[in-house]
């Protein structure tokens, strides 16, 4: 089945009204609460009984409940508008205008601006209404209606700066993900960073981060998006450098910040281009900009520039090749931060931005009908490149970090090939299982006080069975085996590449065969490195137990724990978030079952198929391009599962069978074969070296780029400085000194000072005389008063009598 939502046949109505569910209109409260919590924790946190943690947890918990209510309202809103044209929604709408009448929807465009007395406060809810496509019998009168609540901030020179929220499926989904994971991470952190010297500070920044991310996803204009984007960057900086006393940590924070600056240039250029090209130089409104592009009002060149510049922003924020280098280093931060920021939420800001401004990319990169473009290729290269890097990491968090980079590559690739829903769905599922894995790795590290799998882990299954099982669930979900979460989203991406015509799949926006192959390779790599990670961490025998203070990043606060002795299972505040997340990892993929898998129509509201697509994707709305959806096929699902199993199988054979057997024979807990491929084969060894050196990208950045800047470039600049600039400056300085001397002796000393001195002397003499009058006797004063009054009276009489 091929369902194409063609823009050409869609009639678009953008209109403004004031009616939406309370929760949808007041979603701005959700970011506000953590923002308030940040300030409160900062000022009063240390005096609270739990050092501020309770404030953050309460704020985020309330935000989460509000997000749930908002999600519920959104589902109601979506279905309500769609299936019940005679309900409250259209009643109110009818008071304002008749634009929702079904027979009018198929006609031409018209915009109704309703002035109902609230316009003086400029508080408006915009319903960007899009009629359903012509001929779509199932969606005949089911518009996708986004709710926008905005206030004008200021207006200057015809440019409108507004502040507001845009609530649609995408932002509601992000609200739920961010608040839920943030809540779990907050709970987890009370144990994990308990007793830390900057415990309160940590919670303050967790709150600020949550607020920033929520602010970002709710933005209704690109200016606000930039602000949110930078805010999450700042929070990331502060939290990566949480233990800044150690040089590598503060270096990592700086690296993250500076690498992101590179991409931010792209963000600014892209947004400015959009503002002038699509916003007409008057508005930053996201919906307006998107609508202009969807309607073909914007020149292609401007869109190409904007899309390319914004891709650079995505590369830095979402860790795409070649600007991904900051993300693995960002693991210097506390593990809850890695889970929250560098896996589940902040790094998806780039993906979210693309999803939000999708028309820019869809039109700018000509995604439809093409077979290669910048965004999809960056994603595909990242996906495989980072997957390979994950194999040579000894630090468990770095394995997960590269895995995150790789999965973000999946998302970027999916957006690049036009599989919007697949990308957003993968973002959604990935948030759960990657947070699960990160928190699980933190749980292990908490027990052994190290992140080094080869030196300090091994055999942890025996000591931490609960962490082990949650970690395995997360890994299987990540590896993409059915029916866990990762399978459904990954498979959708592969379907979306549209490069699957050979095997019975149809649809998609173009024939992205290269990307399909890369996606398949990535699936195998993901499955294999997670198998390696599980073996090294949980199987074999425990290799720790010796002094490992030099590795202990995370245990400043745990001096009371014995550094020796056997590791033990973590406490409930660490385990419960793990249970919740692994529960979600098990089942969350089922929210977007592909059509045709079970009986029933894909659009059936009572059915279970494509629920995610139905509620999240703004298909047919006025601000979303006409993307085509590929049709899933059994053969593709079987092959991708087979490839993942192959990856697991190869890694299993190497680690669980060969290494394990050798370990038993030698009586040691080995981490690799002594005579493996990398020691016997030259090519393999070269590849290994390349990976260990992370493709020499860090060398490129620090050695060559920074080195050139420091070396020849700096010397040249120094010469220019000394010989050109300084000479001019010296000349100017000497002239100024000479002039100054003349001015000083003649004008300053003679004229100005003379005048001032004389004025001073005159007032001194006057004062000496006048002080005699000031006798202190009240009667003398009275005499003067009466004398003056008498004189004035006399003058008055003479003046008026004559």
């Amino acid at each position, binding site marked *: 089945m091929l369902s194409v939502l063609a823009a050409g046949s869609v009639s678009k109505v953008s209109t403004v009204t004031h009616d939406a569910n309370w929760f949808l209109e007041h979603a701005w409260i959700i970011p506000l609460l953590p923002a308030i919590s940040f300030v409160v924790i900062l000022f009063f946190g240390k005096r609270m009984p739990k050092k501020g943690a309770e404030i953050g947890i309460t704020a985020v918990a309330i935000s989460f409940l509000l997000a749930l209510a908002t999600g519920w309202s959104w589902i109601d809103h979506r279905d309500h508008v769609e299936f019940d044209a005679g309900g409250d929604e259209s009643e109110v709408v009818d008071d304002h205008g008749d634009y929702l009448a079904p027979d009018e929807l198929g006609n031409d465009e018209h915009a109704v601006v309703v002035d109902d007395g609230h316009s003086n406060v400029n508080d408006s809810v915009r319903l960007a209404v899009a009629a359903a496509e012509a001929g779509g019998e199932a969606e005949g009168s089911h518009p996708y209606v986004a709710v926008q609540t905005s206030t004008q901030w200021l207006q200057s020179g015809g440019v409108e700066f507004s502040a507001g929220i845009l609530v649609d499926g995408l932002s509601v989904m992000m609200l739920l993900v961010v608040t839920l994971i943030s809540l779990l991470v907050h709970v987890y952190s009370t144990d994990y960073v308990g007793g830390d010297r900057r415990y309160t500070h940590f919670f303050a920044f967790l709150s600020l981060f949550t607020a920033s991310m929520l602010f970002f996803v709710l933005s209704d204009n690109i200016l606000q998006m930039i602000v949110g984007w930078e805010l999450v960057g700042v929070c990331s900086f502060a939290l990566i450098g949480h233990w800044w006393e150690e040089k590598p940590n503060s270096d990592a924070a700086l690296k993250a910040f500076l690498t992101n600056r590179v991409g931010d240039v792209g963000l600014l250029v892209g947004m400015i281009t959009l503002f002038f090209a699509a916003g007409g130089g008057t508005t930053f409104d996201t919906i307006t900009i998107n609508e202009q592009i969807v309607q073909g009002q914007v020149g292609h060149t401007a869109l190409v520039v904007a899309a390319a510049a914004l891709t650079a922003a995505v590369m830095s924020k979402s860790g795409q090749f070649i600007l991904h280098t900051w993300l693995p280093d960002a693991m210097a931060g506390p593990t809850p931060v890695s889970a929250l920021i560098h896996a589940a939420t902040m790094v998806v800001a780039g993906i979210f931005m693309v999803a939000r401004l999708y028309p820019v990319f869809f039109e700018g990169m000509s995604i439809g009908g093409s077979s290669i473009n910048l965004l999809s290729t960056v994603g595909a290269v990242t996906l495989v490149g980072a997957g390979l890097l994950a194999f040579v990491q000894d630090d468990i968090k770095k394995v997960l970090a590269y895995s995150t980079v790789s999965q973000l590559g999946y998302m970027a690739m999916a957006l690049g090939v036009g599989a919007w829903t697949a990308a957003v769905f993968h973002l959604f599922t990935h948030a759960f299982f990657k947070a699960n894995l990160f928190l699980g790795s933190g749980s292990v590290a908490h027990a052994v006080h190290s992140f080094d799998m080869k030196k300090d882990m091994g055999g942890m299954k025996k000591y931490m069975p609960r962490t082990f099982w949650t970690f395995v669930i997360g890994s299987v979900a990540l590896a993409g085996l059915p029916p866990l979460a990762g399978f459904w989203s990954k498979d959708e991406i592969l379907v979306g590449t549209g490069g699957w015509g050979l095997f019975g799949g149809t649809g998609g926006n173009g024939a992205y065969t290269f990307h399909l192959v890369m996606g398949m390779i990535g699936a195998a790599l993901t499955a294999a490195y997670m198998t390696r990670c599980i073996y090294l961490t949980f199987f074999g025998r425990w290799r720790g137990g010796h002094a490992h203070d030099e590795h202990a990043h995370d245990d400043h606060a745990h001096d009371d724990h014995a550094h020796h002795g056997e590791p033990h299972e973590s406490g409930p505040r660490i385990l419960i978030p793990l249970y919740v997340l692994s529960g979600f990892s098990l089942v969350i993929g089922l929210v977007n079952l592909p059509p045709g898998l079970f009986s029933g129509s894909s659009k059936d509201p009572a059915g279970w198929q494509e629920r995610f697509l139905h509620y999240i994707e703004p298909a047919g709305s006025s601000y979303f391009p006409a993307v085509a959806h590929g049709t899933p096929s059994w053969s593709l699902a079987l092959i991708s599962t087979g490839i993942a199993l192959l990856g697991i199988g190869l890694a299993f054979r190497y680690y669980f069978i060969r290494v394990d057997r050798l370990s038993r024979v030698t009586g040691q807990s080995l981490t690799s074969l002594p005579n493996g491929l990398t020691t016997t084969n030259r090519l393999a060894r070269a590849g290994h070296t390349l990976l260990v050196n992370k493709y020499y990208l860090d060398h490129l950045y620090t050695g060559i780029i920074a080195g050139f800047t420091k070396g020849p470039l700096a010397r040249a600049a120094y010469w220019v400085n000394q010989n050109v600039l300084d000479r001019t400056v010296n000349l100017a300085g000497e002239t100024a000194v000479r002039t100054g001397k003349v001015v000083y002796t003649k004008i300053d000393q003679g004229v100005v000072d003379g005048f001032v001195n004389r004025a001073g002397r005159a007032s001194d003499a006057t004062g000496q005389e006048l*002080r005699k009058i000031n006798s*202190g006797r009240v009667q003398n004063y009275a005499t003067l008063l*009466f004398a003056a009054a008498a004189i004035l009276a006399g003058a008055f009489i003479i003046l008026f009598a004559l």
Partner: protein
Amino acid sequence: MLLNQFLLLAAGLFCIGVYGVLVRRSAMLVLMSIELILNAVNINLVAFGALTDDVGGSVFALFTIAVAAAEVGIGLAIVLLMYRNRRSIDLAQVDLLKG
């Protein structure tokens, strides 16, 4: 109407009051002299009020009397405190503000 007589009386009282304020050394007598000045003004007000057949003059006179009562209250308080501090109410000795 015999306005002149009232004005002359008022002017005389006023001059006596001013003289008292300026030359008497006792704070009590100065206060009493101020009362004379105020009453001279009152006579003027009442006289002009009667001349123009306007009740406003009398109203203002009453107002002045009320304010004068308050003024005397404060004035006496000052004198009393002065006496407590210096055992004297001689105004010639009160010259702390001398510049």
